[in-house]
C-alpha cells in the first residue's frame, strides 16, 4: 500500500515536472519578444539578401534596440552600394493607442530609422518618411504578439 502510494506520488511529481517544462518550451516558441520588442522573423521581408526591411519598437516608444541598429546598418550599407535607390520609411503603431497620437508616434519611429540611416552615410534626400499610425497592421489579430509585430518601421524601395 505504502509503496504504491509512493510510486503514485512519484508519478504525480514526474508528470507535473513534464507539464511545467512543456509549458516553458511552448512559451519560448510562441512569444518572440524581448522587453516588449518583437525579435522574431515571421513578418520580416528583405530588401536584398541579408538586408531585413523592418525594425520593431516597444509600446509607445521609438528608441532603437541593438538589433534594430544592426538591421539599419545593413540597410545603410545596401543603400550606399546601390546609389540610385530611394526609399520610403513607413512608421506604424499598434491598435492600442488613440488614433491621432499613433499617427505622431509612427512619424517619430520612421524618423528614428531615417536619422540612423543618415548617420551611416545615406543622404536624407534619398529617404522619405510616412506615418500610417495604426491604420495598416501587418498582423490583424488583437494579441500582444500581433501588436509587437505591428509596432514597426519598414523601409520600402521607392523607385
Amino acid at each position: 500500500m505504502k509503496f504504491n502510494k509512493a510510486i503514485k506520488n512519484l508519478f504525480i511529481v514526474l508528470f507535473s515536472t513534464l507539464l511545467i517544462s512543456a509549458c516553458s518550451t511552448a512559451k519560448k516558441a510562441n512569444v518572440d519578444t524581448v522587453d516588449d520588442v518583437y525579435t522574431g522573423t515571421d513578418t520580416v521581408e528583405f530588401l536584398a539578401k541579408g538586408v531585413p526591411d523592418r525594425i520593431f519598437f516597444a509600446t509607445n516608444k521609438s528608441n532603437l534596440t541593438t538589433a534594430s541598429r544592426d538591421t539599419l546598418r545593413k540597410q545603410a550599407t545596401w543603400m550606399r552600394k546601390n546609389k540610385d535607390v530611394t526609399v520610403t520609411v513607413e512608421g506604424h503603431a499598434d491598435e492600442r493607442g488613440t488614433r491621432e497620437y499613433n499617427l505622431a508616434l509612427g512619424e517619430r519611429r520612421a524618423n528614428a530609422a531615417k536619422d540612423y540611416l543618415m548617420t551611416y552615410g545615406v543622404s536624407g534626400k534619398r529617404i522619405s518618411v510616412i506615418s500610417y499610425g495604426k491604420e495598416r497592421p501587418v498582423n490583424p489579430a488583437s494579441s500582444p504578439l500581433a501588436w509587437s509585430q505591428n509596432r514597426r518601421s519598414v523601409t520600402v524601395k521607392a523607385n
Partner: protein
Amino acid sequence: MKKIFFALILSIFTLQNAHGLITVDITRGNLDPLPIAVSPLHVDSKSEKISSFETSKLGEEISKIVEKNFKSTGLFNPLKKDSFVQKPDIAHLKPRFEDWRLIKAQALVTGKLLIIDKKLKVEFRLWDLTAAKEMIALSFTTTPNNWRRVAHIISDKIYERLTGETGYFDTRIAYVSETGPKNRRVKKLALMDQDGFNTKYLTLGNELVLTPRFNPTNQLVTYLSYFKNMPRVYLLDIETGVQEVVGNFPGMTFAPRFSPDGKKIIMSFAKDGNSDIYSMDLETRVVEQITKHPSIDTSPSYSPDGKYITFNSDRSGLQQIYVMRSDGTKVKRITHGSGLYGTPVWSPRGDLIAFTKVRKGRFYIGVMRSDGTGERLLTENFYQEAPSWSPNGRVLIFYRETKSDSKGKGFSAKLWSIDITGYNERRLKTETDASDPSWSSLLSK
C-alpha cells in the same frame, strides 16, 4: 449633396405661450422616464400628393421619428399608440385630458400638417396632461422633402420645453465609414442624420481618410486625407464637394479642428519626428506655431470662447492632457491620474473636457472639469476613443472597436453614445462599420 442641405424655409411662430408644470431633470440618470403620448399628426385631406412618399402616412411617420428621438434620450417613455383614445385631429384641437391621463401619459404631443403649393405646413402642440394646459404651440413651413427634419425640429422644441436645455435632434454626424478586412480597410467620409438616416458618402474610398470635424455652421468638414500618399489636413465644402489642402506644410498635418468662430483650423504638424500644434487662418492663410516642444503635441481642441486650447502631449514621458492659452502660453498639465490620457475635447458649454483614458489595457471615455478635477469615467471597454459632444453638452458620441482573433476575424468598429451622467449607453446604427464621429451643431437655431 445639394439635396441634404436643401434650404430650409423655416418660420416658427409661437401661437401661444403657456406655463406648464412638468419638467424633466436631465442632470442625473433618469430612472423614471416621463410617459409621453405622441399622437400621429393629422394629415389635412386637402393635401397635395407628393411623388416621393405617401402623404397620408406622413403624420404617422413624423410621430414615429419623434417617439424614437425621445426614447433615445432615456428621459422619456413614449406610450404605445394602440392605447390612444382620441383621434389626432380632435386631440389637436382640445384633448380630453382625463382620457389621456387614464393611459398614464403625463405629456401629449399633437399636430397636423398640410401640403399645399408644394410647401409642407406643420403645426404641433405639447400638452401638460396633469395641469391640463398647453405648453407649446408652434407652426412652421418647409419643403416636403424636409419632412424628417420636421420631426427632429418638433423633437428639439419639446425637449427644450420639458428639460430647459436645447435639443440635439436636428443634427448630423460626420464619420468615417469602414469596410473590408482589418488589414486592408477601405475608409470613406460619411454623413448621416443623428438618427442614422440619409447617409451620404463624401469620398469614394480611393485614399485613406480620417478624423472629419464640422465647422460651426456645418457647411465644411476638415479631415485628414492620404491623397497621393501625402497625409495632409483637407477642407471639404459639403454642398459643392470642393476639397482643398489646408496650408502648405512640408510634412504630415493631422488632428484638425475648427476654432469656435470657424475662422481657423488648429492641427498638428509633424516634422523630423516631432509633432507640434499649429493654427491656420482660413481667410488670410497665416500659419501660427502654437506649441514648440520636442515631444508629441496633438489632438488640440479650443474652449468655446476661443481663449484656451486643450491638447495631449507626451512631454512628461507619457501621454497626458494639457491646457494652454490659445497663443501657446501658460501651458498646464491637468491630468495626473494613473494611466494615459488622450483626445481631449472641450464641451460646447465650456464646463467640461471629455477624454479617452487608457489604463491597464482598458479604454475609458470620461469627463472632467477644465482644470482636471472631478474626473468621472463613463464607460470602459476593450477599445474606444474619440468622444464628440452633442451641441447641448449632455451626450457624447465615440467609437468602439472589438477584439479580433488570430486571423483578424471578429473585428468591428461602431459608433456609440452615452449621457454624461454615465447612463443611457447605446449604439448608433450605421450602414457600415464606423469610426471618428463628429457631431454637428443644431442645423436650425
